[in-house]
């Protein structure tokens, strides 16, 4: 398969993630959509790495995955503590910082 098809698929997956972040209110689903976007970027990394014939892109995928794991752990801890205080994780209702 050519590189372009992988990049198009990656763009479509990324777009799906963006729409999810904009449309959904549940903070956990917003997190899942962020994971979708990171995965789309990973797909583009691996496809270009294949096309260039070297492993650098896959090394970056490794870093992206490590950062994603850290981000998910912190984010879910924040969600749990927000839920303990507010009894909701709808992002529309958690607006104490709104100016």
């Amino acid at each position, binding site marked *: *398969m050519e*590189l*372009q*098809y992988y*990049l*198009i*698929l990656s*763009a*479509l*997956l990324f*777009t*799906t993630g*963006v*729409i999810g972040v*904009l*449309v*959904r*209110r*549940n903070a*956990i*689903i917003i997190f899942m*959509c962020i*994971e*979708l976007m990171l995965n789309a970027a*990973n*797909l583009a990394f*691996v496809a*270009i*790495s*294949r*096309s*260039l*014939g*070297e*492993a650098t892109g*896959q*090394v970056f*995928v*490794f*870093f992206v*995955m*490590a*950062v*994603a*794991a*850290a981000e*998910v*752990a*912190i984010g*879910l*801890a*924040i*969600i*749990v*503590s927000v839920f*303990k*205080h507010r009894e*909701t*994780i*709808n992002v529309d209702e958690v607006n104490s910082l709104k100016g």
Partner: protein
Amino acid sequence: MNAEQILFILFGAVSLIGAVAVISFRHPIYSALSLVVTFFAQAGLFLLLGAHFVAAVQVIVYAGAIMVLFLFVIMLLNLGTLSVKGAIGGKLKGFAIILGILLAIEGIYIATNVLNNTAIAAAQPATAAPNTTTYDIGELLFSKYLLPFEVTSLILLAALIGVIVLVKRSSNDSI
């Protein structure tokens, strides 16, 4: 059509359908399970691209560890009955979808036209290169990218401490 194209279409379709299912199911558990499907399909795509190490890590880290965290939190908070109603924002939905279509068009344009003039397109003959092995990745990680690799361990340490602090304080205060 050869086998690689058929597999690409299969895995690509499954991952796209899974991604759409993530954002359209109202119940978070269904979304999480659709996300697992997407991750597995993407692991298949990585295998097609010859990135065996990345495919294995995708299954272990994403479909294993991260999704268990998600499911654990969803079940811990018992969101099923709470937030199903009004799960999808009403006012900005159309606007978001229009923006998303524009973004998709941009991405497809970049993927098909813009990259033709860059170094990536110039390196096309290398498509037939042998698979990059775990050995190659390890060698790069521990030579050229040694500093980022160490910084990654610091990030994980910071995340660990951060999570402990966050959860501990909120359970002590009991506000």
